[in-house]
């Protein structure tokens, strides 16, 4: 017989990396701690504080996505947090007021309900606005700015200016927004007494579950093709453009997602803490969350969440124990983390840099 034909080379099946179970295992562990251990261990007041930090963690998750993964340093997440918060606050205010006017409007001499407020009576509309308004503002700003290749520090400055403008706008429109005091004194949250321990406990679970769901979503996004593209945009925007993608689209989508997250966080913050006011969403609170993300570790989504919770605790602890030292400490921590550990706390635990 003729010489046996050599087998044509078969493309080797791609080596399947063994699935790394440590991430999901850690997530499950944290979920058990968050959903079972904490509610059993913590007294209602402390559980409420944790719920507040978890709403901040939702904002931080968005910052982690936009800044850590996408390189967009957004210093105006407070704006979106506030838009979501005010949408929820307006609904609660109207619900409490029944047929009358919200209390602060009476005090500032407003006689008829402003047209802007009217649709917020409807809970479905209000909840839709929590997502739609921050998303739309971010999408518009992102489109206008990224299309013109305004990026990096310019973008950071613009978002900061937006935060500053938003605060002045809210403070100035006393009759419409409650001015400096913001919206507060809520009584009822969807038929329940908002201050009751059982309501607050339910809210804690809601916040924790929303955070968990958003985290998994963001994580999947990060692992997807889109996530790869986002990293590529962060590290070499021009190269991505030369490869035929439009970085502006990728950035706008990501920025919008992060804004929606902040909006949801703001809406949850309102019933948990019982207030939304300009002081909670200006330049300083927005920057504080960015710091928290930097401290936790900006290149990992888990770092962002960790940082927000830790900084929340640190702030409460030090403002109770050493109120004067807190600003020094925060400043110093900030300088040290950026200077010495740009990868944050998570950076110490990671064997290799997966995302960075």
């Amino acid at each position: 017989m003729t010489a046996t034909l050599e087998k044509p080379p078969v493309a080797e099946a791609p080596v399947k990396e063994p699935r790394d179970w440590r991430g999901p295992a850690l997530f499950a562990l944290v979920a058990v701690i968050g959903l079972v251990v904490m509610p059993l261990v913590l007294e209602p007041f402390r559980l409420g504080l944790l719920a507040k930090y978890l709403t901040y963690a939702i904002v931080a998750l968005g910052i982690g996505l936009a800044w850590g993964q996408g390189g967009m340093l957004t210093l105006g997440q407070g704006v979106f947090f506030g838009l979501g918060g005010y949408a929820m606050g307006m609904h609660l205010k109207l619900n409490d007021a029944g047929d009358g006017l919200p209390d602060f409007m009476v005090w500032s001499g407003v006689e008829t309900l402003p047209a802007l407020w009217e649709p917020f009576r409807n809970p479905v509309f209000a909840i839709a606005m929590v997502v739609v308004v921050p998303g739309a503002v971010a999408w518009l700003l992102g489109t206008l700015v990224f299309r013109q290749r305004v990026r990096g520090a310019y973008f950071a400055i613009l978002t900061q200016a937006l935060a500053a403008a938003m605060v002045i706008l809210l403070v100035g429109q006393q009759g419409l927004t409650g001015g400096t005091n913001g919206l507060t004194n809520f009584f009822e949250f969807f038929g329940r007494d908002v201050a009751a321990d059982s309501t607050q406990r339910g809210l804690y679970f809601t916040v924790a579950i929303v955070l968990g769901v958003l985290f998994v979503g963001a994580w999947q996004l990060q692992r997807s093709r889109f996530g790869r593209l986002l990293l590529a945009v962060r590290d070499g925007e021009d190269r991505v453009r030369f490869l035929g993608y439009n970085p502006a689209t990728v950035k706008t989508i990501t920025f919008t997602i992060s804004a929606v997250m902040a909006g949801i966080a703001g809406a949850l913050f309102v019933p948990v803490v019982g207030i939304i006011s300009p002081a909670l969403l200006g330049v300083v609170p927005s920057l504080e969350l960015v710091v928290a993300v930097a401290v936790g570790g900006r290149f990992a989504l888990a770092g962002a969440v960790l940082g927000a919770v830790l900084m929340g605790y640190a702030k409460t602890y030090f403002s109770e124990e050493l109120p004067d030292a807190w600003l020094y400490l925060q400043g110093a921590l900030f300088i040290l983390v950026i200077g010495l550990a740009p990868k944050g706390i998570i950076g110490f635990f990671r064997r290799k840099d997966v995302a960075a």
Partner: protein
Amino acid sequence: MEGILNQLPIGLSIGAVLLLIALGLTFTFGQMGVINMAHGEFIMAGAYTAYLLQDFAGRNAVLVALPVAFLVAGLMGLILERTAIRHFYGRPLDTLLLTWGVSLVLQQVARDLFGAPNVQVLSPTWLQGALGPMPYNRLFILLLAVGSVVAIWVYMNRSAQGRRMQAVMQNRQLAATSGINTGRVDQRTFFIGSGLAGIAGVALTLIGPVGPTLGTYYIVDAFLVVVAGGLGQLRGAVIAALALGLLNSYAEFWTNASLAKVIVFAVIIAFLQFRPQGLFVLRSRALT
């Protein structure tokens, strides 16, 4: 009509202050890629310098304070540059966060030293009165800004140091290979830029009280001037600062104070649609 005329001095003087603040920012940003959030605290330092000098100079403290505040703020900037910022050149976003930490600390230092309530600096008696619609104190601020711009222009274009500064701004590597000590140039730029913020602080004492958070009111607007004017551009900063000051005061006049900032923001976003890199651009073939 009279209202329109009355807004003019307010807009021009705020523009002049913004210009003094933005000059330092635009040079440090353009030359070193540093976004200095602590710049606002140099303004505050300048203002408190004038406050302290009242004990020695009485009502003429403002005049004495001008050179002293320049030195004080300039030295603060130099120390910041030497100890921290120089390790972060070319990482603008990191410097932004780092210097914000510094700014927090400096604000708290001011609170501990001078107390949280605002203090007042009495302006010289010869600055009371007005030239037509233009109060003397606002005219003084305007002249101060004009003088500073002329001085900076002469420095940049007519002195060897200034030309080196321009060279570094245009192309750092090429400047370095031509024998320019770029580190030294950076220090000088930082000193001068911070010093100008100190002068702006003194100017601000003429039109308002002084407090630990004085700088935070102006820093965001000053950054917008940098964005609108173009990086490291003297002409751009002058035009953008005056335009922003006027726009601010007229937007407040025609609508109200709370809408004005939103209008200014919208105008700047619209402006960036036509000039994404600001009014004037340093032309280069570099991609980014």
